[in-house]
């Protein structure tokens, strides 16, 4: 029997869900998603979630910030309007690098942090005015829910329900 049903299985403990997920995956059941009030450590490899690449983005944003800061200061202080400050002329970039370190650092952090945060908001689609998609309001409090589409791996709803019941779930719902 194949249809586009979605099965939600609710648990009252993160460890029960994790153990259950391991058993279900071993039986070839594909778990689409897990909703929880806090990160369940160890769930990602079990249900096949890859490590996020946000950190790589942050590194690239940081490099952009560093380059912009150095290029900007080079233009402002060396090319456009060199100043003689306390007998220390601004003729060459390399002579001024020590004085440019603080702002280069700050600007690197500024762009890395804000770039990463914006990417995070957009990738998660958490933005002002967005409607939440968690299936049960309890999943932000003390309940843990698996989302399974039986059509993903061609199992009947009855068989899946039977398998789910063995894992200690407190509620199975078909939507």
């Amino acid at each position, binding site marked *: 029997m194949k249809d586009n049903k979605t099965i939600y299985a609710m648990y009252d403990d993160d460890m029960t869900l994790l153990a259950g997920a391991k058993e279900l995956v071993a039986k070839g059941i594909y778990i689409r998603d897990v909703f929880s009030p806090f990160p369940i450590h160890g769930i*990602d490899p079990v249900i096949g979630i890859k490590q996020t690449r*946000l950190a790589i983005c*942050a590194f690239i944003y940081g490099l952009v910030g560093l380059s912009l800061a150095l290029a900007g200061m080079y233009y402002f202080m060396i090319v456009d309007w060199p100043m003689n400050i306390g007998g220390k002329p601004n003729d060459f970039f390399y002579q001024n690098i020590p*004085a440019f370190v*603080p*702002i280069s*650092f700050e600007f690197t952090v500024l762009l890395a942090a804000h770039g990463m945060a914006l990417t995070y908001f957009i990738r*998660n689609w958490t933005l*002002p005015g*967005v409607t939440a998609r968690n299936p049960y309001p309890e999943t932000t409090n003390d309940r843990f829910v698996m989302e399974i589409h039986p059509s993903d791996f061609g199992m009947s709803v009855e068989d899946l329900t039977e398998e789910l019941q063995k894992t200690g779930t407190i509620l199975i719902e078909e939507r």
Partner: protein
Amino acid sequence: MHQEAAIREPLILGEKSYSQITDDVMASVVGKANRSWWIAIGIAAVMAAWGIGCILYLIGTGIGTWGLNKTVGWAWDITNFVWWVGIGHAGTLISAVLLLFRQKWRMAINRSAEAMTIFAVMMAAVWPGIHMGRIWLAYFVFPLPNQFGSLWVNFNSPLLWDVFAISTYFSVSLVFWYIGLIPDFATIRDKVTQVVPKKVYSLLAFGWTGNAKAWNRFEEISLVLAGLATPLVFSVHSIVSMDFATSVIPGWHTTIFPPYFVSGAVFSGFAMVQTLLIIMRKVMHLENYITIKHIEYMNIVIIVTGSIVGVAYLTELFISWYSGVEYEAYAFINRATGPYWWAYWAMMTCNVVSPQVFWFKKLRTSIGFTFFMSIVVNIGMWFERFVIIVTSLHRDYLPSSWTMFHPTFVDIGCFIGTIGIFFVLFLLFARFFPVLPLNELKTILKSSGEQYKNQPTTEEH
């Protein structure tokens, strides 16, 4: 699951379940504010109103209404600026540095400490702003060509570094704090039943869903932002100290300033966290989450940073003599024995001597004594900045320009005003925001919660 040694004291006391943590924190958000909250915010609002009045008078009339004179060109304004920035160091230290060191005790205190940081940095930013005199020209600090011609701001000046440092620190701390708040706003959104709060918290929660991938990203961004914020914390107060250290004023021209300012900042920041949390845990009944052990840990940080500050004071004093520079030596002799001796000795007593009493376990685990000490440390750290700024300036090279600084009512009003605004913001935070990080506390409930720790372990490993 991670197991914790049985002898380590639990961080969450009592029989708590996941939903109980939610209920305990949400009690203040959904319930009615009690009388003490209204009294506190009333007093803070009066202070804030007086301060805003003084600030408007200052902007309208000019900074001549402060007690500044030709010799003492920086006094309470910059003292208050550095004091507030210093207080604003504990929050990010707790949330970033302690996250990198995997210190679980930070979880009960990081949310409110970060809120304190953000409000303190806002108050700090007021001071250079109003000190400009013509605040409507404040955009001059940005790298715009001067008068939109071709002369730029001076990138070799620590004052400009400060603009970049403070604005980066403020905005990154704010984003870090808000990213942590989103899942907790979602918890409140899904739990409240009244219509208006539900709408407001839905908006604040940005549509947080809490699926596995979102949590994966959440953990990654928390870690990377902590990694970025850690050097940021150290850079901000180092750069503030360079406002002084790169000048040629005896008493300011000191290479020890960056580490000395950073440890002083952490010292005063933790003291302010203690002041706020000791009241908050009592009023909001959070004794099971912010335990005596948390207070003791913070007092240990206060001993360590206080001792670093003490060593720095003594080193500075020794070097002023050892350097053989008469002007340096005079600046320090004048601090200790000149007309501002009382400020110097107040600083020494509050910052160097008094934190050492925390070596006694009985005192560092006493709530009343800790509260008293947190006030003492904050007074001491205010005096530290006053001593550095005013005593170094008031004896100029020419004895004919020697003078004293006398604060006017505007100086006092602006200072009291920033304290008032700070407390108004913090009290609003305590009333309407989740003051403990729910999602993080739930992750440590099983490893550090009291009833789980006392159970015999059923796991094989």
